[in-house]
């Protein structure tokens, strides 16, 4: 055994911004039960945030950035992510929240000497923090304030590397053992939106890796913190490197897209990008015919992103990639994606141009109208419109002052929320835009409303929804018949019961569904958010990439555990233990939300979820009349009474009482007596 646990740098950095001091604490006491990522961050937040009921932009809020044992390793689709937690300003109301970011940040933090960073207080001046091989320096950021996130990163690269040209070696500060490098530091920076406390502000790393949901960029801005920079040459001990290489190769061989001779391909060229969520073709396009070079997070072979010759749209993916399409020009789409990242705005939380345009067309918004603005709606289909809109939000100018508060708060101010939330403006949970249909794909909607934000975990979604919808839209048969699909998904999750994945009108309220939602939250908390596995690949339930008629199983859940053992050396670790730890993290998070004022009555999905029937085909497996099939699920709503019943059964399954408060006996069973004491002290013991 090394002098520190395998997979860890061994130290946690605590930044006290108020007096520009710092301290370090050992990671070791947290390794066993909190492990890394979200688990580690939540425990650190619990210990370092003295008043968890303050506003997100209060200087008593604490932000934690936590890597994990997989960060910086060759774990496939798992070596690049870190978790960010703290009180988030975006949701309505504000909750203790989370976000994660990929790229090379996690590995760089550990190379610089730290597994996590705790950010406390507010700096008396504008600062950025330079971390190099364990050394920590507060640097003046006055000249960086006002710069966008890309300009800021470049300025910091130059300062840390002493203006060394790209590709050339430079010596890191210190003695000879500090080492040399050609790399740039990994910088985590805010743009103008964060500086101006915009609730949808991100923290950007490299071109398009962002801590997106939750608005943590605004928290950085409130703390006068422009950026964190990590650079180092420290290595991290792996318990069984040979086994890790073996697992990596095995997974890549089994699941990787065979570039030269693909097993499965999209049926027509225009389907290629849409099939890529299932086939994992690098860059999302047809190899050799894309306009960009495939690019990915550290250690990932899948490379779902791309780098472009003109650098606009670099690394773009997810919602922000298609944020602006109204001009019909791909160059505008790319340019807008980059603008979002430069200003530091989350493309999902800032998803509002269509709604604003509708208000304009309705005669409600515009120059001299009820909502008075001179936004250039007459040029909605030109880049000028989106450029003006985003700059105004990021700088809180004109109508941007309202929109910087997020669309839910803005529409409440305008007196439009009650009417528009019935369908025109679809914000099903906590002010977040609809992601997947909350009336149908209920792991997503139940999981979001019972926690803190849009869950944004695609692992189940790719299988149950996309693998049927995408081929059927292109006139093809689904990848698997419904019965075989749910059987395999049940097997890969370890739930073993196909009824957990029944999306019929009966199935979405069943005990099996409650069990699936519970599993999803526990798996997500541990493997996605604490171990940094990317939800675009994990859990690996069905191998769509190299599927044959008789061999289509993914590698979950066995390989997650094997990877964990190879990296950490914890040979007694089991899949059941991982879910138990995920459950434990959710108990701690729930206690924080209860302290913040969470009650069953606040967990309300928007009215349209219960009142507006679905009207667009949305393939999902259903079990009806004794057989499995795919349904287009038209005409469906959720039932309010049955939703409340699900809510109570979910509470019970988690060990919460009827008010949703974690029970003392359950907390103590998980070693969380101090959490039970805190709830008692707040009059919310159960």
């Amino acid at each position, binding site marked *: 055994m090394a002098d520190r646990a395998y997979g860890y740098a061994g130290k946690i950095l605590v930044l006290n911004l108020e007096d520009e001091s710092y301290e370090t604490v050992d990671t070791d006491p947290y390794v066993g039960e909190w492990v890394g990522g979200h688990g580690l961050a939540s425990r650190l937040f619990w210990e370092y945030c003295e008043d968890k009921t303050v506003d997100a932009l209060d200087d008593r809020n604490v932000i934690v950035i936590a890597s994990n044992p997989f960060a910086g390793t060759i774990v496939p689709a798992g070596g690049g992510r870190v978790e960010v937690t703290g009180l988030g300003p975006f949701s309505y109301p504000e909750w203790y929240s989370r976000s994660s970011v990929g790229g090379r940040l996690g590995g760089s933090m550990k190379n610089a000497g730290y597994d996590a960073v705790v950010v406390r207080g507010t700096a008396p001046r504008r600062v950025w923090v330079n971390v190099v091989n364990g050394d920590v320096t507060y640097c003046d950021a006055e000249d960086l304030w006002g710069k*966008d996130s890309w*300009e800021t990163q*470049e300025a910091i*690269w130059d300062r840390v590397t002493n203006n060394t040209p*790209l590709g050339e070696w430079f010596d890191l500060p210190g003695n000879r053992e500090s080492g040399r490098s050609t790399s740039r530091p990994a910088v985590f920076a805010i743009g103008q939106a964060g500086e101006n406390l915009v609730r949808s502000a991100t923290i950007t790393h490299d*071109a*398009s890796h962002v801590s997106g949901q939750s608005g943590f960029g605004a928290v950085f801005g409130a703390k006068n913190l422009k950026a964190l920079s990590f650079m180092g040459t420290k290595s991290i001990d792996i318990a069984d490197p040979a086994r890790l290489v073996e697992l990596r190769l095995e997974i890549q061989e089994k699941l990787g897209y065979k570039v030269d001779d693909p097993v499965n391909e999209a049926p027509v060229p*225009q*389907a290629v*990008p*849409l099939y*890529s*969520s299932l086939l994992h073709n690098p*860059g*999302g396009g047809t190899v050799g015919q894309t306009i*960009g070079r495939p690019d990915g997070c550290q250690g990932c072979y899948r490379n779902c*992103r*791309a*780098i472009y010759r003109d*650098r606009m*749209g*670099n*690394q*773009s*993916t*997810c*919602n922000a990639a*298609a944020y602006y*399409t*109204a*001009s*019909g*020009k*791909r160059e505008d*789409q790319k*340019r807008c994606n980059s*603008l979002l990242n*430069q200003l530091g705005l989350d493309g999902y939380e800032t*998803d509002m141009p*269509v709604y604003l*345009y*509708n208000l304009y*067309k309705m005669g409600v918004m515009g120059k001299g109208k009820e909502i008075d603005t001179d936004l250039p709606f007459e040029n909605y289909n030109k*880049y*000028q*419109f*989106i*450029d003006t809109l985003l700059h105004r939000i990021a700088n809180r100018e004109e109508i941007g002052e309202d929109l910087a508060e997020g669309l839910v708060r803005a529409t409440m101010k305008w007196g439009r929320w009650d009417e528009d939330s019935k369908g025109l403006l*679809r914000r099903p949970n906590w002010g977040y835009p*609809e992601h*997947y249909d909350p009336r149908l794909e209920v792991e997503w909607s139940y999981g979001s409303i019972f926690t803190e934000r849009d869950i944004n975990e695609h692992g189940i979604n*790719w299988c149950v929804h*996309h693998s049927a919808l*995408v081929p*059927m*839209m*292109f*006139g093809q048969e689904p990848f698997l018949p419904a019965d075989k699909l749910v059987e395999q998904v049940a097997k890969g999750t370890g739930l073993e019961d196909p009824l957990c994945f029944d999306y019929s009108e009966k199935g979405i309220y069943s005990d099996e569904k409650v069990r699936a939602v519970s599993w999803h939250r526990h798996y997500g908390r541990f493997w996605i958010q604490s171990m940094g596995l990317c939800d675009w690949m994990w859990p690996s339930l069905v191998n769509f990439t190299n599927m044959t008629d008789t061999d289509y199983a993914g590698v979950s859940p066995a390989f997650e555990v094997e990877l964990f053992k190879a990296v950490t050396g914890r040979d007694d670790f089991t899949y059941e233990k991982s879910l138990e730890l995920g459950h434990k993290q959710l108990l701690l998070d729930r206690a924080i939300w209860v302290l913040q004022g969470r009650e069953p009555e606040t967990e309300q999905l928007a009215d349209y979820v219960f009142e507006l029937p679905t009207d*667009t085909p*949305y393939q999902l497996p259903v079990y009806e009349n004794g057989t499995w099939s795919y349904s287009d699920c038209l005409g469906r709503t959720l039932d309010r009474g049955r939703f409340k019943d699900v809510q109570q059964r979910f509470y019970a399954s988690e060990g919460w009482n009827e008010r949703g408060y974690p029970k003392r006996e359950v907390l103590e069973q998980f070693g969380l007596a101090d959490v039970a004491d805190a709830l008692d002290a707040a009059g919310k013991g159960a």
Partner: protein
Amino acid sequence: MATSYVDKRDAARLTKAIFSKSPGESDPANGKDVLGTEIPAIEADAALPDDYASPEADRLFPRPTPEEAEHNLRDLTWGEHIVATRMAAARGNSTAYLYSLQEAAIFFLDGNSGGVTLGSSGSFAWVDLDRFVAWIRDTVGDEPFAAVLEEKLGALDAYNDKIETMRQLLDLRMTQYIPYLPADEEDDAGEDGASDADEGAVAGESARE
């Protein structure tokens, strides 16, 4: 050789851009002299050469008169719009509100809807095609186009076959409207954002190149 509305539209824009430049003027996009030989400048909003007409389109639909084009390409108001859905893997479904024939063409024919997209974020356009045909006929007012759509789509079963046929017909019909579409202004950055794409090296390229 340009073959579709999208290609022809872009080619038309390029033609306008080139013809509206003076000899020796550089193209700011690539710094090259786009006019190696002396070509007389023409008005930027002059009608397009008939080279962009499509015999395929002309076989299917009568060319719109200027009056018909003006009417059929007009901006619509709230209540006259049609709703479509962009189905994207990463984003899920998002609703598009289309307020003109040209907005419909952008939505159904642009690179993103058609599949050429960024990274792994492909999307697929969905619309109730019966409603779409009725909208073209009754709201937009393009009856010849609606009649051909109705005939061709009625012979198909699978959604993908229908939407692809619709896209091809829309593409052809829009080709006939190109001379009447408003001029596209290339430099359309916002009030204070014009410099964003023009500044020097930016994060994201140099770190990885």
